[in-house]
């Protein structure tokens, strides 16, 4: 008797844990969070693998470089590299991985190879806002204008306006974004000379003082104008077409006819009845886009010499500054994961049909 009870208690205990995990998994928000953490974990592991485990990896190469010509002893080189990479080279591999993870969680991404002693985190944070500003503005503008045009195109289905807008939208969005950028430079800057591109390089003009002055803000906008235009043009097509389709679908819905039967004015129907239903899935797409667009920004920043994260990555690649490369890769992955999470949460808040007991 006495022996049976502890066994039962044990079974009950395991059951409890399984049930708890099961409930956790079922809750949509928690599940999304768990997946996000998992993705970041995988990204960290891949990063670690790339730099440490593969043959010809940067860590060993760096040690080789430092010890060449007897400039340093192997131990000294190892010590220096360890410091740079936030890795303990003497410990067994699993422990190295663990401490790498630990450091990353504490925001320590190592130090740059080139700017000795400058933490990677700091470097990235210095350039990140510029990218986010250009990308964010371009995306938001393209969204706002795109859904407006898409809505109009749907309401004027089959008209010249509709065909023109839809065709233009799909053409511009099929052209690779860096080609659009080059074309802008080529046509506007060099051939037609309406845009002073040489003056627009960089994030802000050398002489201007950073700060919240009108001068500075104006200058920043001047320099960001071309990148923002490229992001605007290359994304607007998608919003126009998506909104057009969503609006056409919403217009077919019975509740729109029912709203007209109630004598509701067209303005109210377009905004709260058709518009709101059509735009709902697009808002989450917007959140997800933010995550991905940072990847495409790299080439744009190079063409316009715009000092954001993308350009910094390219410089790190050119200079073999592996800690910075690794840090940026990790950071961008994390931001994509966060953006997806936000998108999921946003959708469940915006659509009353989700998450509420029916």
């Amino acid at each position, binding site marked *: 008797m006495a022996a049976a009870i502890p066994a039962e208690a044990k079974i009950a205990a395991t059951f409890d844990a399984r049930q708890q995990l099961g409930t956790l998994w079922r809750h949509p928000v928690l599940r999304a969070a768990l997946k996000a953490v998992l993705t970041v974990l995988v990204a960290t592991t891949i990063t670690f693998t790339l730099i440490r485990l593969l043959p010809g990896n940067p860590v060993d190469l760096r040690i080789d470089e430092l010890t060449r010509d007897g400039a340093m002893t192997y131990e000294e080189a190892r010590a220096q590299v360890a410091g740079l990479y936030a890795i303990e080279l003497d410990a067994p591999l699993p422990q190295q991985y663990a401490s790498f993870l630990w450091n990353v969680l504490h925001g320590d991404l190592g130090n740059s190879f080139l700017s000795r002693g400058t933490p990677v985190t700091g470097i990235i944070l210095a350039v990140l806002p510029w990218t986010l500003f250009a990308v964010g503005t371009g995306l938001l503008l393209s969204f706002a204008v795109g859904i407006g045009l898409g809505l109009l195109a749907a309401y004027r289905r089959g008209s010249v306006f509709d065909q023109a807008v839809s065709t233009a939208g799909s053409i511009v969005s099929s052209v*690779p974004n860096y080609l659009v950028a080059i074309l802008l430079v080529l046509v506007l800057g060099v051939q037609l000379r309406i845009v002073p591109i040489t003056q627009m390089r960089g994030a802000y003009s050398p002489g201007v003082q950073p700060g919240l002055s009108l001068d500075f803000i104006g200058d920043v906008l001047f320099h960001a104008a071309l990148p923002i235009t490229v992001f605007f043009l290359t994304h607007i097509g998608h919003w126009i077409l998506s909104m057009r389709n969503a609006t056409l679908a919403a217009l077919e819905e019975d509740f729109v006819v029912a709203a007209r039967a109630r004598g509701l004015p067209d303005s109210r129907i377009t905004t709260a009845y058709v518009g709101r239903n059509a735009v709902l899935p697009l808002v989450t797409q917007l959140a997800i886009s933010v995550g991905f667009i940072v990847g495409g920004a790299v*080439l744009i920043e190079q063409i316009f010499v715009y000092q954001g994260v993308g350009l910094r990555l390219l410089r790190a690649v050119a200079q073999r500054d592996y800690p910075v490369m690794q840090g940026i890769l990790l950071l961008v*992955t994390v931001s994509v994961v966060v953006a997806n999470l936000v998108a999921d949460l946003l959708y469940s808040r915006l659509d009353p049909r989700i998450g509420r007991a029916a």
Partner: protein
Amino acid sequence: MSVISLIAIIARRPVGLIGLLGVGGFLVMTYAVPLVVPPQSTVDVANVYRTPSLVHPLGTDFEGRDVLNQIIYGGRDIVNVALIAALLSTLIAVTFGSLAATLGGKVDTAVLTIADVVLTVPQLIVLIVVAALFRPEGFVLVALILASLQWAGLLRQIRAQVLSLKEREYVEAARSLDLSLFHVIFREMLPNMASYVAIHFIFAMTGAVYAQVGLIVLGLIPLSGANWGVMLYFAQSQGALYFSDSFWYILSPILAISLFQLSLVALASGLEDVFNPRLRVG
């Protein structure tokens, strides 16, 4: 459905027709024309950056070479890599997608999780980092690297399709006849998924072209010879971008790449007509 009737359906709508003509034209130019027109790589410093003329319909480059000739020869590497990458990613997606759906359980969860992670990771940046680390030179390697990131989207679609088709009657009928799993997947289900696969293949190609040219322009793929991307790379690195005489030299590869992408997208649009009879006109 025969190839002729397939083409006829696609060509019925202007979008499909444009897609067919465009893709067809580019394939002919990339593979057939070089058999007839010899490459011209002689340097002629006297003729640098000439504007278009009868002798040089697209002008000349910074070393006096004919641009049109470079455009004709410049597509081959890019199209080759795009085709291989698209083929690889489609194969991976179809194989693992249907396996995951039919086997279910832990295999399914594992495959799905990996796919989700790959989908989340920012492709271009990973490609940049990988290219910087591995310095790929042959185009097969480039294709492999590109394919390794592209399969995830199609895999999810294939998996979803197979999951829904699994429950359908004709599958049950096939299985009750003791036909093997392999037979069921490839003879019964795939024809229904042909639309997804074909359209994904085309978009995988556009993605591969985008990524390739991007990496080349950044100088991360050391290629030589005539190549649309390399032309742009030289334009960038030599500051030709800001030089007004080099307009045609730069515009030509841009047009070539853009028109190729547009043709692919148009063809995909046209293919939707084939697979969605409700959209067919007439």
